[in-house]
């Protein structure tokens, strides 16, 4: 059973979050020159192990990652195609717990490897504040396994809303339905996406703080924002294909639908754009270039998902390609032409393919 869970849930997790790992890898290893890389990571490890606050910060990051894993597993277990996992509930409690601990260890492998490096650093340098994070990590794995055990064995217990927001009736034009879907059915996905996006955005600006006000730095930060939204866009299109496919039999033009998506993406990226405008001391030119690049990027991701019929494996390969080609264009200073080119490709693809795509194949 473990093999099956790792091959299904485990591998899918890594496949679906390749964008996140890519950006994280770039932040950790791609931005520092070779000979400084080891020194930088050693200093980082020592600073984490020697300070209680730093140890708590790394634990907070691990907590977010664990939350992402737990919600991913919960979402998968609720899908019809993962109903076979209900077989796990026929095992006794101890076996089930061990199984889920192993699954979470697999999902949290990057964190566990880093925790291993922290232990080695603690032993070598005799700093023990890092133990806070290590103990916390063990508790997080135990929590994740217990939660999944409870969620899969006690499905008959009614769920209660911990927070009951006042019911405000907002008008819902058709183009905003995907946004309501995020707010009402994918709150955690949205929160994690925005948090990761803003964290990466700030991290890039922080790493290149010594460069000065260079538009390429802001665009690199926005590239991480676009990549952080890769899975969110994927989920939005899945939602569109599954629940809004009826609208394709209605007399709505492709261009009207495209305007809707563009407006939706603009709303999604508003926090990042507001931050960009503020951090650049209200530089309108950088904001406009940034908006053009980010919105074109998101539209391109959308076209990619349509074109690839939501095949995640191919999507991630193209994401990797998009990352490298975007970085090259930004660093070479061709960001405006590049933005226009990807916008033209995305718009042309959408308009030409709108009536030639069967949404059923994407759903």
């Amino acid at each position, binding site marked *: 059973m473990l093999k099956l869970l790792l091959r299904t849930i485990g591998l899918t997790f890594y496949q679906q979050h390749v964008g996140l790992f890519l950006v994280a890898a770039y932040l950790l290893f791609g931005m520092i020159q070779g000979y400084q890389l080891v020194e930088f990571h050693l200093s980082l490890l020592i600073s984490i192990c020697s300070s209680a606050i730093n140890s708590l910060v790394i634990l907070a990051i691990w907590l977010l990652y664990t939350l992402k894993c737990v919600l991913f597993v919960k979402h998968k277990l609720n899908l019809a195609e993962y109903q076979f996992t209900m077989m796990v509930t026929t095992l006794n409690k101890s076996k089930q717990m061990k199984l889920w601990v192993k699954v979470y260890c697999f999902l949290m492998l990057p964190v566990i490897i880093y925790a291993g490096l922290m232990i080695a650093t603690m032993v070598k340098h005799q700093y023990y504040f890092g133990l806070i994070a290590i103990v916390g990590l063990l508790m997080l794995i135990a929590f994740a396994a217990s939660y999944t055990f409870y969620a899969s064995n006690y499905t008959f217990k009614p769920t209660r809303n911990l927070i009951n927001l006042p019911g405000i009736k907002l008008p819902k034009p058709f183009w905003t339905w995907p946004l309501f879907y995020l707010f009402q059915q994918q709150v955690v996905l949205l929160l994690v996406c925005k948090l990761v996006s803003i964290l990466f955005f700030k991290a890039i600006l922080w790493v290149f703080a010594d460069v000065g006000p260079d538009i390429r730095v802001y665009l690199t930060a926005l590239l991480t924002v676009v990549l952080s939204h890769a899975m969110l866009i994927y989920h939005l299109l899945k939602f569109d294909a599954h629940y809004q496919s009826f609208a*394709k039999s209605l007399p709505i033009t492709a261009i009207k639908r495209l305007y809707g998506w563009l407006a939706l993406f603009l709303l999604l990226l508003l926090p990042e754009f507001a931050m960009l405008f503020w951090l650049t001391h209200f530089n309108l030119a950088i904001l406009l270039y940034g908006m053009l690049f980010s919105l074109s990027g998101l539209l391109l991701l959308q076209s990619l998902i349509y074109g690839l019929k939501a095949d995640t494996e191919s999507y991630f390969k193209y994401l990797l390609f998009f990352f490298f080609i975007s970085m090259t264009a930004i660093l070479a200073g061709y960001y405006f032409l590049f933005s226009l080119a990807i916008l033209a490709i995305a718009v042309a693809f959408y308009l030409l393919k709108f009536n030639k795509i069967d949404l059923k194949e994407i759903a």
Partner: protein
Amino acid sequence: MKIYGQKAKLNLLNLTLKNIHKQYGLHTVLQFDEFHLTTGIYWLKGGNGTGKSTLFRIISGLTTFDGIVKLNNIELKKDPVQFRSKISYSEAEPQYPLFITGRELLNFYQEVRDAKPNEIAELTSLFEMTPFLDQKVGGYSSGMLKKLSLICAFIGSVELIILDEPLITIDSASADKLMHLISEQAKMGKSFLLSSHQEIDKEKLAIATVFEIINTQIVKC
């Protein structure tokens, strides 16, 4: 008895499908030279997997296909928006976003189909859906969802209404009302293409022709 729907003047229907070829992977579902419909009520029979829904999805512009689909000289592939303004389609198992209310969905249809509010009020009242319109679709039973989908199909002055398995999940009283509604709308000049596993009472509905899909071909019964 009230006549529901807009009383717009409708043209005589002329739906033509030519050289249709549709396959999923290597499996050919439909392959025929010509299929023609004029004004009237048509019933498409056939077992599971024979291609009824695929045919409906082709005519509704929901799926890709090789060939030509033309409605009163409007070609689907050349002018899809104009074509879709003339037809409406109710799926066998409709899916709508779970968080919207029935009223929000109907308002959307009203806007797109340029329909009158009283038309929707009459339809929802006929199918006894009015008390549930402010509930979220996610809380609807399968029968209520089906009725909502049928109501959507009748909104506006379309020329051809395609109903895929309209009788499944709805109660017999609603089924009778639906049959009566189809008859009334047919008198106004609208055409219908229905599929149903259940036998349709020909005394309740004046079926012009019964078709069946056999080995990728549409044949008259």
